[in-house]
């Protein structure tokens, strides 16, 4: 079914880190003229985004966010039992980046660590795993780290994706406690649509070679990328999202018995401004209840939901607030969650 209810587990605090380097999209005319750029940027709504430098990985952004969070909350690091690192831009093919972060953050060697390799829906998947392990009783405190350097994945010479993505990292501390109440999740997957968003080469199906890193013109518009760059079939993804995301949204409302009016904020994956605007309109959501960061951080894949909470809701979460989260993308995978934040600590965003 992919529908899950949890009781008495939740997020104690969150923090984020983004690269200090700001890319102003309208002025970013390395490969395209400003007129063409304006047409794209007006539609996708990404005015600014952040790019990590060549020495900065997703793990570094998550590390900075986690340091901030653990310090803010004055957490004894020996009490962290579980560290999950969510990313599709890990440090290495092996070992898993989560293990490197266990050492860097000074966590005990008894910590359970693993990576989750999923995209835009992954924060919901990561929370579900952390919530489950806490519910099992084996884990008391879990650190969910979620980072992406999408700027390193897509070709800047491909206008279909070259202006969309940005980098960021977040940390969330998950724990048990009666104050958290109930939460509900719906998680889904459709591998028949795996080709819609993909990096074709560089894994073990098509291993790296001189051929796979060679850039070439890929379409009649003159877009250029290699087989180790990501590509996205935007129209197919859009069509899928406007059909399935509202369905899952309503499915979870029905399953949870929660009324739409009882939800304070609807936080969507920041895909692009056009998709997000369309979803909000289709679902008849008030603008003030749908916070957005697409204009200032771009699409940061799995990071965008927690980054939007941290960036836009910091001063709006006093007391108990009910949030609906909706993530969708590569896989394809998609999911919806309804969670309560109860005096959740939100740290200031760190720039590195």
């Amino acid at each position, binding site marked *: 079914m992919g529908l899950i209810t949890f009781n008495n587990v939740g997020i104690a605090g969150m923090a984020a880190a983004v690269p200090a380097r700001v890319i102003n999209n309208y002025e970013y005319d390395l490969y395209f003229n400003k007129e063409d750029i304006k047409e794209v940027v007006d539609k996708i709504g990404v005015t600014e985004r952040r790019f990590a430098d060549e020495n900065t990985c997703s793990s570094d952004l998550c590390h900075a966010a986690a340091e901030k969070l653990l310090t803010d909350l004055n957490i004894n690091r020996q009490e962290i039992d579980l560290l999950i690192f969510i990313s599709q831009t890990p440090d290495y093919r092996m070992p898993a980046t989560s293990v490197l972060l266990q050492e860097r953050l000074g966590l005990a060697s008894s910590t359970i660590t693993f990576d989750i390799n999923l995209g835009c829906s992954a924060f919901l998947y990561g929370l579900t795993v952390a919530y489950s392990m806490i519910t099992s009783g084996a884990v008391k405190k879990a650190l969910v780290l979620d980072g992406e350097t999408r700027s390193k994945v897509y070709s800047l010479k491909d206008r279909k994706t070259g202006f969309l993505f940005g980098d960021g990292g977040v940390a969330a501390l998950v724990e048990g406690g009666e104050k958290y109440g109930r939460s509900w999740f719906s998680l889904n997957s459709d591998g028949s649509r795996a080709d819609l968003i993909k990096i074709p080469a560089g894994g073990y199906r098509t291993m790296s070679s001189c051929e796979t890193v060679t850039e070439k013109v890929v379409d009649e518009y003159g877009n250029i990328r290699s087989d180790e760059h990501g590509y996205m079939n935007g129209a197919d993804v859009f*069509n899928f999202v*406007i059909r399935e995301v509202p369905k899952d949204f309503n499915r979870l409302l029905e399953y949870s018995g929660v009324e739409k009016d009882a939800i304070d904020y609807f936080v969507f994956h920041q895909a692009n401004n056009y998709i997000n605007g369309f979803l909000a309109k289709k679902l008849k959501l008030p603008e003030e209840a749908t916070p957005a960061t697409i204009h200032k951080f771009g699409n940061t894949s799995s990071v965008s939901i927690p980054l939007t909470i941290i960036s836009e809701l910091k001063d709006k979460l006093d007391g108990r607030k009910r949030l609906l989260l909706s993530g969708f993308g590569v896989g394809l995978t998609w999911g919806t969650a309804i969670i309560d934040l109860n005096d959740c600590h939100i740290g200031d965003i760190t720039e590195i």
Partner: protein
Amino acid sequence: MKEKLISALAEALEMDASQVKPDDIFRDYENYSSLTELSVLAMLDSDFGIEIEMQEFNKYKTVEDLINLVSSRQN
């Protein structure tokens, strides 16, 4: 239905409705691009309640094909 579709298609493609004729191959319009295609898909969904797979959408060539699609789904 025909007038409604033509007017909505013209709006999605930022064209004047008088420029849109049933026999036209809509992908040949100068304003048709991967960006405006999203507006066409959004228009079919929100104005006509049509949810469609791209595989099917890609089979439609002319404005008339879209008129027929909309008419058949309405009945």
